């Protein structure tokens, strides 16, 4: 058995060690050193789960030859005794930019660049799979040393720029050899992200959803191209297809983006390994469901400096919790059984990696699992059988430590890479600390040496008088300068340290004459280090969502009987006095007088008003992005891709009685993105918010925004209303031809944008079109008629009153503001009577918000139609309930109080359209998501928890931990014309 191992080892030697045998040598004679190295008597982790006590590790030519308790040491072996020391396989970082410089930003300049700059590559400049990190790689000795000091031996480096970033290179941090040895692979993995290139200026993608759509289309195109369908050459696609089977790593970042990246991977059979952020623990179930490996960064936030109560006020509970909970991220993922690897990426100072790793262990990360995450798992993902362990044949990449590497006081003495030893700390350092009696000539002093083993400090006394002294301890020699009582006159002293025998050396006296001295140890050094607190740190519970007003447990549906309410049905039944409504299993099951509750909870609604939940046809809350303005048509993007379920707007809207809304793309382009229709289930995940039964919608837009009238951009078609028409005609004609080709079963290139437009032509998707003036409203109806479909909704539609008859004839609905006007030129003729006039001509009319503030008062906005135009109260209320439900084709589920419909209900303390009314309870499918009483207790709980966290942060600061200045994180409140790029 042993012989076999030896033979195996030798084989490797001949293949690796002599790899550059063919190089001529002109500066001397050619020699070879094929000696063995044996490290003996060490505790050896041959893998995270296999540990050998007092074992021997035998190396030759950069590889492990043998490892075990009884390894036979061959002749010609340099033997080092590592008694008391531990050997670990060194760490592997899958996500690094080692040796690759950060691309400098080339942004700026005037105007937007819509067209690509390259020829022969993919049409989008941010797709660069043809980039290879190795082409830019230059070994950085200093960065290598820093990485080695943290335990890393091998890193997978890549160019961190662009949406498709090209191939990475696997590098051993071997400072003593050349790239010929240290480059383990020059095509080790492909990298992707949602972020545009810093060096490219092409406008598209200008948003998260745009980046997602771009990746989907690219992967689809690569597939199509790979089947030989293209007449032209595309070096980007070819580079991607050539690497198709290598590891694919996605730089996702936050928890939501992990799920986003995974979905794209699943759709195109690309099993991404995904770099997360520090917040994955907040969405454990969704991340576990991705069934993929997460690369976990250890960049835990610093505590906020909150001693000043005024400044402390600026920090949100969400951010305070992030500080408190983030160190538990690695352990939470590990305990949930999610496969992880760890990375130094994201740390401002990479030299904090080990300390953060140890912190993670303190917060519950299992040591064995941590070691796997740093060794065997990344090696497996890279498909490298010779990395991540120390069994025979493995690359000799390992650490020599003083003890358990996960404990605070252990040291890494040596980091061996490919069999070369990088000494970080002298493992043979003589511990000179202790108490000595020191004598020279007739003098007798007492010397105490204490402190750090490498940088000890001395205290010198003569007849119980302190002498001033300074001790330097370096490379086994100690040097001291000593000042006498009066402060002048100096002794100088030098001696070679000695472990057991008395220290003997030379002392140079005040007058320059020399004498010999002896220091004899009288007693050993005793560490005064306090024993570390072993109890796990206090971590606040995660809520759903994990922000202020989140719930400790996700609320559940309750069977409920509302007794004796004034019921606004939004149906022909009208407004019913003293009526009961019974909710069972999330549905409205009975409406009537004196209903029996059965097992249902009874809510006395006497003197109160019960209505259907408000529906906002036009909102942009709860989104990570709103506009993809990088092209004039972006039907390929989906708002469902960028839902932010933690946005406080959701909770605030519930407090205003809103239960359902359409999250629309912005109005940056004539053909915008697909909508997300959601229910405001506070505490649910992004996917759970989606209104499953709602049909597909898309945002179109007309007028000033799509013409880019109010910002300086003059290069994108269209710049006039005339151009807008031609653009629509062109796109619909192309979609018609695309669909015909597809239906005829001819071979075609899948085009997500054309697919969506064809859905419109086929009546499978509905348009909600941002619109203001009558000419363009009329135009879009005519274009639609030309292509045999109907525009579903004109949203905003502030001049709808001028063409209400035409709208009624076409069969389009109007979703409008109650009273907005005068904010731009095209709304100069907007009038608050608009809703009433359109309604009078038979148009289905809704009142919408397009605004996080107004959305939570839509009941009041509906009331304005009573004031302006004399709408009846019953009809006015429909403007925010059944009418928007009709416009969204969800009126069979929501929008009114009728038996069989979803129990989306609001209990008001007053007439629901009175400015004085408050929502007391807001329910979605039987689940109470807002309750005025619970809200009160939440306010108190927020104050309390913040105070606890503030005290913890102040304690953290006092203990010497670094802090950051207080800040308030801010999400941008989106409107139609918000551009983020």
């Amino acid at each position, binding site marked *: 058995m042993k012989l076999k191992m030896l033979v195996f080892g030798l084989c490797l030697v001949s293949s690796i060690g002599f790899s550059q045998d063919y190089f001529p040598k002109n500066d001397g004679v050619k020699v070879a050193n094929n000696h063995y190295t044996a490290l003996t008597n060490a505790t050896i982790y041959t893998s995270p789960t296999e540990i050998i006590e007092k074992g021997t590790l035998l190396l030759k030519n950069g590889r492990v030859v043998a490892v075990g308790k009884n390894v036979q040491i061959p002749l010609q072996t340099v033997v080092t005794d590592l008694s008391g020391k531990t050997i670990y396989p060194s760490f592997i970082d899958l996500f690094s930019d080692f040796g690759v410089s950060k691309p400098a930003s080339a942004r700026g300049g005037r105007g937007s660049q819509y067209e690509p700059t390259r020829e022969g590559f993919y049409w989008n400049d941010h797709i660069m799979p043809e980039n290879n990190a190795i082409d830019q790689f230059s070994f950085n000795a200093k960065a290598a040393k820093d990485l080695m000091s943290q335990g890393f031996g091998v890193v997978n480096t890549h160019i961190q720029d662009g949406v498709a970033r090209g191939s990475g290179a696997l590098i051993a941090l071997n400072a003593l050899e050349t790239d010929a040895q240290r480059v383990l692979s020059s095509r080790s993995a492909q990298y992707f992200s949602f972020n545009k290139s810093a060096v490219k200026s092409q406008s598209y993608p200008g948003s998260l959803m745009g980046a997602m759509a771009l990746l989907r289309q690219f992967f689809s195109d690569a597939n199509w191209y790979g089947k030989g369908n293209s007449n032209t050459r595309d070096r980007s696609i070819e580079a991607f297809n050539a690497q198709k089977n290598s590891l694919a790593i996605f730089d996702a970042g936050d928890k939501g983006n992990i799920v986003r990246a995974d979905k794209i991977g699943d759709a195109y059979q690309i099993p991404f390994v995904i770099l997360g952020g520090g917040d994955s623990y907040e969405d454990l179930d969704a991340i576990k469901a991705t069934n993929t490996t997460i690369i976990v960064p250890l960049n835990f936030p610093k505590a906020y400096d909150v001693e000043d109560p005024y400044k402390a006020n600026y920090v949100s509970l969400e951010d305070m919790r992030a500080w408190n909970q983030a160190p538990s991220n690695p352990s939470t993922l590990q305990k949930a059984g999610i496969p992880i690897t760890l990375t130094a990426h994201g740390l401002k100072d990479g030299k904090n990696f080990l300390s953060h790793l140890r912190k993670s262990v303190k917060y519950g990360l299992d040591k064995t699992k941590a070691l796997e995450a740093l060794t065997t798992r990344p090696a497996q993902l890279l498909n490298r059988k010779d990395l991540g362990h120390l069994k025979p044949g493995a690359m000799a990449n390992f650490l020599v430590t003083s003890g358990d590497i996960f404990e605070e006081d252990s040291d890494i003495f040596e980091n061996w890479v490919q069999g070369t030893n990088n000494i970080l700390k002298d493992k043979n350092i003589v511990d000179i600390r202790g108490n000595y009696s020191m004598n020279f000539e007739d003098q007798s002093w007492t010397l105490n040496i204490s402190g750090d083993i490498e940088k000890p400090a001395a205290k010198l006394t003569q007849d119980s008088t302190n002498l001033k002294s300074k001790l330097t301890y370096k490379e086994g020699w100690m040097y001291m300068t000593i000042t006498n009582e009066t402060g002048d006159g100096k002794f100088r002293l030098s001696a070679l340290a000695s472990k057991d025998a008395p220290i003997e050396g030379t002392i140079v006296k005040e007058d320059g004459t020399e004498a010999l001295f002896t220091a004899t140890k009288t007693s050993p050094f005793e560490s005064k280090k306090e024993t570390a607190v072993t109890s796990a740190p206090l971590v606040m519970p995660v809520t759903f969502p994990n922000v202020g007003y989140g719930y400790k447990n996700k609320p559940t549906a309750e069977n409920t009987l509302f007794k004796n309410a004034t019921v606004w049905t939004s149906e022909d039944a009208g407004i019913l006095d003293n009526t009961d409504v019974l909710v069972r299993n999330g549905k409205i099951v009975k409406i009537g007088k004196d209903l029996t509750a059965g097992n249902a909870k009874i809510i006395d609604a006497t003197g109160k008003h019960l209505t259907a939940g408000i529906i906002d046809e036009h909102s942009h809350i709860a989104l990570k992005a709103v506009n993809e303005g990088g092209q004039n048509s972006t039907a390929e993007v989906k708002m469902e891709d960028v839902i932010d379920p933690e946005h406080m707007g959701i909770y605030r809207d519930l407090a205003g009685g809103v239960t359902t809304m359409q999250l629309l793309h912005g109005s940056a382009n004539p053909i915008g993105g697909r909508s997300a229709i959601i229910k405001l289930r506070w505490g649910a995940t992004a996917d759970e918010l989606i209104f499953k039964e709602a049909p597909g919608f898309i945002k179109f837009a007309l007028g000033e925004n799509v013409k880019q009238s109010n910002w300086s951009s003059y290069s994108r078609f269209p710049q006039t209303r005339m151009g807008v028409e031609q653009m629509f005609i062109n796109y619909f004609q192309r979609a018609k031809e695309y669909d015909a080709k597809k239906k005829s079963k001819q071979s075609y290139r899948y085009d997500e944008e054309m697919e969506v437009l064809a859905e419109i032509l086929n009546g499978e998707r509905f348009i909600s079109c941002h619109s203001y003036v009558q000419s363009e409203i009329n135009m879009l109806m005519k274009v639609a008629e030309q292509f045999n479909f109907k525009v579903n909704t004109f949203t905003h539609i502030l001049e709808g009153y001028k063409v*209400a008859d035409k709208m009624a004839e076409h069969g389009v609905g109007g979703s409008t503001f109650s009273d907005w006007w*005068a904010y731009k*030129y095209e709304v100069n003729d907007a009038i*608050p009577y608009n809703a009433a006039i359109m309604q009078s001509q038979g148009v289905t009319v809704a009142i919408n918000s397009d605004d996080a503030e107004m959305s939570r008062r839509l009941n009041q906005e509906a009331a304005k139609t009573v004031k302006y135009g004399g709408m009846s109260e019953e009809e006015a209320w429909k403007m925010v309930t059944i009418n928007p439900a009709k416009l969204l084709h969800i009126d069979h589920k929501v929008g009114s109080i009728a038996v069989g419909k979803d129990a989306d209900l609001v209990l008001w303390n007053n007439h629901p359209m009175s*400015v004085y009314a408050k929502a007391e309870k807001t329910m979605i499918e039987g689940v109470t998501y807002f309750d005025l009483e619970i809200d009160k207790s939440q306010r108190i709980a927020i104050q309390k928890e913040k105070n606890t966290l503030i005290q913890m942060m102040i304690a953290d600061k006092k203990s010497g931990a670094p802090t950051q200045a207080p800040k308030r*994180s*801010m999400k941008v*409140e989106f409107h139609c014309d918000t551009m983020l790029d």
Partner: protein
Amino acid sequence: MKYFKNSLLALALTLGCSNIWAQQTPAGAQETAISITGATAHIGNGNVLDNATLVFKSGIITAIGDANTPTEGQIINVNGKHVYPGFIANCSSLGLVEIDAVRATDDQDEIGDIIPHVRSLIAYNAESKVVESMRPNGILLAQVSPKGGFVSGTSSVMQLDAWNWEDAVVKTDDAVHMNWPSSFRRGRWWMGEDPGLKPNANYKRDIDAFVSFMENAKVYNDALSNEKNAPFQAAKGLFDGSKKLFIGANGDKEIIDAVTTAKKLGIQEVVVVGGAEAYKVIPFLKKHNIAVLVEATHNLPGSDDADYDQPYKLPKLLADAGILVSIQNADAANFQNRNLPFYAGQVVGQGMDKEEALSLITLNAAKILGIDQEFGSLEVGKSATLFVSEGDALDMRTNLVSHAFIQGRQLSLETHQTELWKRYMGKYNSSEKTVE
């Protein structure tokens, strides 16, 4: 040039066709006495009179009382309806901005850091369609103030039915407006910065600049100078109390710094504008007798952890503590000023008495502007600037103004918007008839 001329002509024609310059003709001076009878009179000072009679002559209220009060002149019986003092919009941009996105129509923000000499008065467009749209909702008076920068300029108080700014003004150059620096600064997200708030390193430097200006202005005005300095001159009224200083400040620290600094400089009359965290420093505000013009209640709370109804209840928190409170919406779009009554109504939902909520936008507003001798309540001797509503004017459904008077002059309640409404309803009604 020729092209330019032609296009101008074309523009003029287009605009002419849509009748865009049309504005209601201002009413002439009150010639005969008017008596309003049968009204529920909301006085503005917290009191209500049922079935009241109100008499005004030559623009002045001469009598108000129960049904036995002798009438005079023209009698307008408004049985079951409500009469209110005209609402007052503070810190507005009315008449300074017509269309927000059209730069040519925007006259509210001059360049320069400390420019108290810049006056809103002369830029006020008495023929603004936005101004006209205020009146059918009961807003009859407005403080028109410059915006932006540090010390933005000087406001004047206008009545909203006039031929020109000289007609319109009721108090000239009433106050200097400034924005107190914020100790936290918002990241410029459009430039890639974190959009969050972080400590403002320039906070003290900015305050020092203001202090230095004011100290110099003070000594300048102590004696006659041969060299004129318009900004210093414009600050004079702040020291003798003839002008107020309206300071925009929201944080509790900023409010304390602003008031303390202003008082130390010898500025007589200070009003806090915004005051989002004023409820945290109530004893301080009371001690210095500072009024607060809170931001419109229809706003989002300032932070995620804040109570969802924080902006709704702020006026009540302050008023309950005895602080003089009114409401402004300086930060919202100009047209939104017509929602002023509903901003006050919102506070009633938080438990404030309806009449007290009414005071927020009538007598309190007048007191803060220093025009309460003349406006702000239905009292004998005050200007007959008032209106009649079908119902509760603080609630959207019932704010239906049937009559409005400024200085006794009965004004038109038609607007560009009502005309379009009538024109298009007329079109549809006549075409329906044709069909029939």
